[in-house]
Structure formats: structure tokens, C-alpha cells
């Protein structure tokens, strides 16, 4: 075989091999760790360990923001807010990895004092050194140019923007409009202004925000999920105990996997679909590395 011919064949064959090559990389696609068990602190640690441990994300001396969902005045069993044990474990792991300060906050819908108290998160973190459970302060919101499809700019919370590491810890639950509230919707907690105004185009708006602001790690609390009457719930009959925690650096992949827990396909959720189409992450389950621990 002549050298020229060899190169030709090689070049031609790459056309046919194209799909195979892509699949080879896809197999390397985003890792989603799914841990299951009734020890919620334990499964949180396992999920983190599967991603290489918190030290992959948090370096000594850094400031970390852990953003749970504290949006509603409900106690943890109603699955409207993030499980305080999961939040506490994430915070502990941050400290163990050497974080100098861990800030925990959310922009709540009900009275913030009541939400912080009822969620159990405030009391779970009380007295921990280097940990601040903070109420938002209006003056810390900063206008950020998003240059998105529907949101050109929006006010985002300064302490989230300035953190070295941002860890997103939503709870998986039903939502009347977006069908589910997961990782990408949880980022709304750092949005200022009138958040209700983005509902008319919520999937595009959330994609805009998530395209500009990317959590380093998303850890979805599915220890209990709210299956109806979300995002507030209030009825234990709507709550399902799944004892699962999902962790990924790919927020879209984490959301996509969590969707299956509700018996839905990732593409059923417009927020996930839009984010995937805009290249913010992977939503095809067969293109993720799902690691069960």
C-alpha cells in the first residue's frame, strides 16, 4: 500500500468511524453519582466520594457558598426544602476539605425567619465554626450582564458571585409551571428583583441565568421528593421517601437523572430540554456515567 493510499483510506474511514469516536467520548460524559440509603449523611458522603471527594472542589482557605432550597415555611418532612442533614453533611465536607468560610443562604418566598427556622437548616448548622447562615441583604445584589435570549441582565447575589466555590443543593420536587424544581431552578435563589416576572418564559430565562452562573457542584436531595402540589406542598400524602442523593458537576445531567425519579423523561422538562439544546450540559441518560453507590 502506498503511503498516499493509506492516508486516503484513513481519512475516508474517519467519516464512518465518526459516530464511534463520538460515542467513545460520550462514554466519558458527565458523571452522575447516585447514592441510596437511609443514612442521609452517609449517602451524601458516598455521592461526594464517588465524584472524587470534596477536595476536588474545595481547596484550603476558600470561601464556599452552599445554596440549599429554603424557599418555603415548611418542615423537612414535607420535602419542600432541602433535607437539613444533607446540607449539614455538605457543609461538614467543605470544612473538612479546608474551606475557610461556608455561607449558607437562600432568597425565600415566605418570611425568611420562618423559612430558616422551619427548614431545620438554621438549627442544624448552629454553632459550627466558620459557617454562616445568612439572611440576604438587598444591597449585595449586583447587576450582571447575562446577554441571554430573554434576560439581557439581572441582579444576582454578590456573595454567590464572589464565592470561590458554589455548591447547589436543591431538593427534587414538583412545580406547577416547570413541572419539576431541580438544580437549575434552585439557582433562582440568588436572583434578585421580581422573579415572578420570568415565569412567562421560564425555561429560556433559567437557561440564560444558568449559562452565565455555573455551580461547581450540584447535589440533589431526593431523600424525600414532593410529587404534587409543589413547590410548597404541605401534605404528607404528596411526599415520597426515596432515600437518594444525586451529585454531579453537570447540572443538566443531575436534573435529567432526578427527573426519572418522578417517572418522567428528561425531555419532558422544558427547563432541562432548553438547557441541553443550549449546550449547558448532558440530558441523555445513556451518555452519562451513572455511578450507583
Amino acid at each position, binding site marked *: 500500500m502506498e503511503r498516499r493510499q493509506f492516508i486516503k483510506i484513513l481519512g475516508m474511514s474517519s467519516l464512518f468511524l465518526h459516530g464511534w469516536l463520538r460515542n467513545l467520548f460520550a462514554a466519558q460524559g458527565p458523571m452522575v453519582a447516585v447514592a441510596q440509603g437511609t443514612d442521609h449523611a452517609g449517602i451524601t458522603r458516598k455521592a461526594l466520594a464517588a465524584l472524587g471527594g470534596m477536595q476536588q472542589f474545595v481547596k484550603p482557605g476558600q470561601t464556599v457558598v452552599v445554596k440549599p432550597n429554603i424557599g418555603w*415555611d415548611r418542615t423537612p418532612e*414535607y420535602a419542600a426544602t432541602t433535607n437539613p442533614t444533607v446540607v449539614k453533611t455538605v457543609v461538614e465536607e467543605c470544612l473538612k476539605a479546608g474551606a475557610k468560610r461556608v455561607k449558607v443562604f437562600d432568597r425565600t*418566598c*415566605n*418570611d425568611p*425567619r*420562618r423559612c430558616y*427556622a*422551619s427548614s431545620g437548616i*438554621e438549627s442544624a448548622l448552629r454553632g459550627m465554626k466558620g459557617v454562616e447562615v445568612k439572611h440576604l*441583604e*438587598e*444591597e*449585595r445584589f449586583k447587576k450582571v450582564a447575562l446577554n441571554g435570549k430573554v434576560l439581557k441582565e439581572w441582579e444576582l447575589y*454578590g456573595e454567590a458571585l*464572589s464565592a470561590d466555590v458554589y455548591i447547589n443543593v436543591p431538593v427534587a420536587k*414538583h*412545580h*406547577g*409551571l416547570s*413541572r419539576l424544581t431541580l438544580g437549575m431552578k434552585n439557582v433562582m435563589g440568588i436572583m434578585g428583583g*421580581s422573579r*415572578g*416576572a420570568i*415565569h*412567562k*418564559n*421560564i425555561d429560556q430565562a433559567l437557561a440564560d441565568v444558568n449559562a452565565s452562573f455555573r455551580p461547581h457542584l450540584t447535589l440533589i436531595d431526593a431523600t424525600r*421528593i414532593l*410529587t*404534587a*402540589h409543589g*413547590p*410548597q*406542598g*404541605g*401534605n*404528607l*400524602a*404528596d411526599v*415520597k421517601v*426515596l432515600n437518594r442523593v444525586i451529585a454531579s458537576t453537570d447540572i443538566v445531567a443531575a436534573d435529567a437523572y432526578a427527573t*426519572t*425519579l*418522578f*417517572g*418522567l423523561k428528561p425531555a419532558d422538562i422544558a427547563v432541562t430540554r432548553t438547557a441541553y439544546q443550549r449546550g449547558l450540559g448532558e440530558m441523555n441518560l445513556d451518555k452519562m456515567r451513572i455511578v450507583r453507590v
Partner: protein
Amino acid sequence: MKKVTSARISQLLFLALFLVLFLMTEYRGSDRIVAAVNGFFRANPLTAASTMLAAREYQPLLLPGLLVLVAAVFLGRFFCGWICPLGTILDLVTGRIRKVGAIRALTGRAKYWLLLPLLIASLLGVNLAGLLDPIALLLRALTFFFHPLFGDTVRGGWRSLYGLIGERRDLFDPGYRLLRDYLLPFRETLYPLAFLSALLFVLILFLERYERRAWCRRLCPLGTLLGLVSRLGPLRRIPAKLCADCQACREHCPTSFDRDLLQMEECILCLECSLRCPSQRVRFRFAGPRPQVGTVMERRVFLGGLVGGVVLARGLRFREPAAEAKLLRPPGVRDEDEFLKKCVRCGECMKVCLRSALYPAFFQAGAQGLYTPLLVPRLGYCEYNCTLCGQVCPTGAIPDLGKEEKQRQVIGKAVFDKNHCLPFAKRIDCIVCEEHCPIPGKAIRSERVELTGFDGVKRVVQQPYVVDELCNGCGICENVCPLEGKAAIEVFRVKDRTPLKASSGGASSSGAPPVSDPYVDPYAGGGS
């Protein structure tokens, strides 16, 4: 205030207690609030008298007030000289104000002209005493004006500090947190009538220009009531008159020695005359008949008071129907007349309302409803799990209900305005109201409707509707409606405020939706 006397110490302690209780009238992480926060009102004889007269029944909550009234029979106006925080404030400032002599119009029977109509109006079912009650006047001035002003100033400073030094402000955060958690109002609220509340308070201070404790002796209906009662008692000052050789009492006495004879109805029992008497002659004794001090009031005053009461009770009833449509009362108030009989307009509920949903009425509830609490959903909403207003109400005008019971109380009903509501008027998605509706079964639901948008594109839009049987009128939907100005969903007053059925509010109930539930749960049967 130079000499330390028992009365002075008592006054300062009670003033401190009043301020501490005022600051404690705030949500601090617990669903229950210390019962003592409304102590000054429950121990207030005027509140007790006017409320019981109006409701025509014994109110156990107000027993302390009755006890103080009984004590006044024996001890006269000790409340004014030893307890009343407004009196203490007057004593604290009066030394710095030069006196020009009493206003003649006030020296006569003016105070009876005030007290009598108030009591008669109460008897006719309109409890207006709180308008001029000194404790209420002080609390309202603090709640509506001085405390928000203080909060505004400190918070504004804290904010501009952020503008100046940015994140470095965090160094001072621990100090600010202490201030914020214990002294500042949590929420920055502007109140209607803040100006009037402050003005009345300042006017009372201004009266000190004429004579010491001018308000207390010439106008205060609470003091007048106590003075009236003390006439019956055996407490006497000896000697009753100024001694010919000394007359120092005239200098020392803050209230009742502008004439030669001690005016027992005005004596606030500060004991200055006794403590400072150069020859230690003055004594206060429980003794026999007192010297003749004249009749309480002439027939003219009595009849005038009667007419005044009728005018107050019957003449101020007009209500504007449009304003009445939005006349939303705090949760648990079911009957407007019943409420007006018991509400003493103390402002406690508005102080404690953690979402700043309650505001003092100006003329929405008619002139007779001045300062009574109104829920204004566009400004704040009734927090689903909060029961604080009922807990602090000193007269039970807002009943103190358990959480589940309160959640079922109907404040009003929400109604959509489809000309405004986005999914109807603009054919785009929204349903922020449904999202926020706190009722576990959702009193606001939505149906998916296929529509052609005004851009010609077919789409599925979720159009909301209200389930009346579940709506308690908390107002969060109106509060969060993203439309500017007027909301597309509004809570309106309803006459029938029968509480919702227990099954819909009970969080721990089986929670199955009603049989006729048109809402189909898209995730029923879902899960892993």
C-alpha cells in the same frame, strides 16, 4: 428627677419594661410569643372598662385591668405616678420645658367631656377609648413612627457603609447582627397614620409647655377614670390644704396643687409633697371622710357626655362601599361589629405582623374604624403558619387560635381579573399565584389550555382559577402577582367567614383531594 424616690425607680423600671416588651413584640424564631408583651394593655383599666362595656360581658383576659381599677379605689392614681410609661416620659422631659401657665379651656371639666362620651359610645357598641388611651398613644407612636424611623436610619447607614467599603463591611457584621436581632424592626415598613401618631405624641409633649403633666391631669381618659374611682376610696392626704406658713407643696407637686386644696382626682401619688415637706407634716392616710371637693360633674357635663357618646357611636358609622370591599380583617375575625367592640386600637397586631400585612385603617372602615387593623395584601400577606397577631391581641378581638385552626380562618376570597391576568389577557404562562398558594391542596389551580397566542403561534397555556372552598384569603397571591400596581388576583371581603373544613387545612390528614377535584395530578403513580 433629681431625687431618687421609690416612685421614680418604679417609673423607670416600668418604662424599661414597656420598651423591652415592645421590642419583644416580634417574631424571634418561635411560634409562640411571650404572653407578657401585651401586659400593659391587659392591666389597663380603661381598656378593661371600655371593652367590657362594649362587649357587655366579662373578659377574663382583662382581669388585671379590673384589678388595677379596684386598686385605684384605695390608692388613687398610683398608676399615673408609678407605672404609666407615657407619664414617665413626660416627667423626664418636662424639666427642660419652660412653663407659661395652664390653658384655661382645659382646666375645667374638659377631661370628663372626653371620658364620658368614650364610655357611653362603648356602651353603645363602639369602643373608641383606645384612640386616646395613653398606652395605646405611646405604642402607636413607637410602632408606626419612631421605631421604623430608627430602623430606617440604622439600616440606611449599614447599607451606605456597604457602598463605601464593600465586602470589608463584614468585619462589623457581628455587631450589626446584635443590633438587627434585638433592636431594629425586622422589616422596613411605612405605615399610614405614622404622621398622625407621631403628631399626637408630640402634642402631648408640647402641652408640657403650659404646666407639668398637662396631658395627665387635663385630658388623659385613663387618668380621669382612675381619679373618678379614687373619689370613692378612703385615701386622704393630711393636711388636705396648703399650710398657711409654708405652701412649699405648690412648688413640689406636679399635678394637683394649683388651688389651695389638693385635687385628689389629679394627685398621682408621687409623694413628692410628703418627702419634701420641710416640717414633715404631710402624710397619706386611709382615713375618714374627705373634705368637700365639689361634685364630680355638673348635669350639663353628664348630659353632654351622653349626647357625645351617641354621636360617636351612631354618627361615625358611614362606610364607603368601595373601601369596604377590601376591608380585610386579621385572621379569626368573623364579625365586623363584634370586632369593633373589642378592638382597642393598640397597634400590637400591626407591630407583630411578620409580613407587614396589617396596617391601621384611616377611613376604610368608616370614621369609627380609625386605627383598627386592616390586611393590605398588596403590601404584605398573612403568613400561613403564623399565629402571632391573635397571641398579642390584649382583648381577644383577634382570637388566639392554634396553627391549624388559624389556617382555616377565612379573611376573604381571592378573585381573578381576567382582563389583567397574563395567561388570559396576554396568553402567556405565569401562575406565580398558584406556586405561592400555601393551602396544601392548592386553592389556586390551573388548567392547561391550548390557545393561539397573539403572535399566531399555538401553545399550551396554564390558566389559573380559584377553588373557593379552599381559599382562606391569606393574600399571598395578590402580594406576589408579578403585575405592576394592581394585581390580577385580589382578595375581597366576604360576609360569610365560616372557617374552611378541617380536611383541607390539616397538613397531616390523609390529604386526598376532594372527590369533585378537577385537578389531575400529572405525577400520580409516578416515581421510581
